[in-house]
């Protein structure tokens, strides 16, 4: 038992260290006012970068947060509504042509968004969907939906339909069966699917830029254009802002899913 403990401790420290390391320079830089090479730590700490972000760039950051959040939320809700039935079909039933349909539905997971969005741009231009919220949601949907289907079909392959049959035999309507039996049983997986779609959309840069043309100013677009590789305190502060909501979502999901977490993703 002792050996297990020390091994567990070693893994813990190793994982923690590796994951924390990239955030150290971000935090230090965002709080620095003067940090000339080769000083190991900033010579002068201060809030210049944070002031810039909250005053000058404040409105843009809020716009970015709102844009990113609404695009990601809409995309993940749509992905769930469309992906849930398809995931059920792929996970639970056998039917003719299943292999082909599974392949077709899941192919967009591996094809880079770059390839599709360059083509979609011309089409969306004719439909007046470029530089529009909806256009960006639709292009994000092309790869978020397949991920949801993938996760949900995994959930359904473990699902036992006998429970539904039992509920039906007790006189429940289809809606009651769904709300009382199916949904609660698949909820953890559904949450994971939603979370995954949300995060995918949240961190998307290129497809948003191609379809949104800079007008749909999500946080990644803002981050790229404001930093331009340069002002390190400001770039670090924006990076931290960008990552904060992600932690909130993660912590909330960890709460609601209990131990399950993102492990359901397969």
């Amino acid at each position, binding site marked *: 038992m002792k050996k297990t403990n020390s091994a567990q401790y070693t893994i813990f420290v190793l994982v923690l260290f590796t994951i924390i390391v990239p955030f150290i320079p971000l935090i230090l830089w965002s709080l620095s006012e003067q940090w000339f090479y080769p*000083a190991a730590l900033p010579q002068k700490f201060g809030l210049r970068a944070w002031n810039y972000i909250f005053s000058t760039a404040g409105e843009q950051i809020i716009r970015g947060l709102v844009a990113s959040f609404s695009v990601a939320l809409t995309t993940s809700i749509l992905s769930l509504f469309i992906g849930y039935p398809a995931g059920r079909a792929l996970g639970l039933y056998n039917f003719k042509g299943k292999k082909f349909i599974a392949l077709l539905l899941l192919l967009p997971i591996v094809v880079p968004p770059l390839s599709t969005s360059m083509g979609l741009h011309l089409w969306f231009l004719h439909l007046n969907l470029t530089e529009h919220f909806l256009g960006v949601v639709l292009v994000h949907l092309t790869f978020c939906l397949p991920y949801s289907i993938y996760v949900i079909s995994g959930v359904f392959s473990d699902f036992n339909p006998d429970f539904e049959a039992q509920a039906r035999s007790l006189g429940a309507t289809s809606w009651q069966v769904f709300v009382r039996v199916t949904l609660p049983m698949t909820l953890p997986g559904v949450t994971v699917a939603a979370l995954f779609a949300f995060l995918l959309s949240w961190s998307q840069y290129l497809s948003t830029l191609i379809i949104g043309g800079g007008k749909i100013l999500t946080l990644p677009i803002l981050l790229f254009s404001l930093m331009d590789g340069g002002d390190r305190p400001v770039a670090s502060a924006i990076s931290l802002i960008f990552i904060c909501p992600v932690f909130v979502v993660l912590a909330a999901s960890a709460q609601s899913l209990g131990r399950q977490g993102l492990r359901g993703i397969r």
Partner: protein
Amino acid sequence: MFTAPASRPPVSPKETTLPQKSIILLLTPALLVVVTLFGGGLVIGFFQALGYQPGIEEQSLSLQHFITTLTDPDFTTSLGLTLYIALTSTLISAIASILLAVAINHWAANNKIIHFILQIPLAAPHLVIGISMILLIAPSGFIARLCSFLFAVDVQNTFPILVNDKWSVGILLVYIWKEIPFITFMLLTVLKNMGNELLEAGASLGATKLQRFFSITFPIIRLSLGASCCIVFAFTFGAFEIPYLLGQTYPQTLPVWAYMNFSDIDLKARPEGVALGIIIAVIVISTVLLSEYLTRTPNRNR
């Protein structure tokens, strides 16, 4: 790879059929979206790459843009670089993930904190990690500064070049940092379901640790590993941000090159950018189909 969700037999194999009509009903919305948006995007992209221009009566379509792109001396260089980055990061992530997953499963299966911490990279956007990687490992980055401080000498000229470098070390590090947790979670799910009984049985039969790994653990995680590696390969092959930020000025990876052409102020370069996008898609799809074919043949009876 797409067989992964069904890698375990369904819990209840008896009710696995449904009237054709209902199946179609369940699948139609998703198929509609994927065929219109994904298929549409690729098809329209393909026509654009053939030279289709909106608003012009006489369309002359040809493979010219594909030929120009494929015969450009930069193409082989870019393809080589992109393959190198994608394969190396996938391979290193896969090996590290196997070790980590087995270790966690063995020693820390119930450690909630490790599981939570491991989720952070899954959720952290690539862009942020790219920026922090520059701040960390550039020749004047945080590590170099620490070294200078600890050894009391300026290490700037001796410090290895790790960003915008020939071997794309910075790019690989970002990908590896991001993808190890992804693969690890995929493997952990399977390992948890396997339980310890098989390994204990193996041990009681006198199998060494290595033998137990190769004859018991590996066959069980094989499919899941293959699926996650495919996703990682496809992602790293087609991603733009990280090579753009951390790559050399020249040569560029295929996606960076494609986007540069696509957004060129000279509109004549645009179809070549789209053509490159299609070429990238074709390469990724065929790699994935090939690897699915290769991993499918042995061990069919599971």
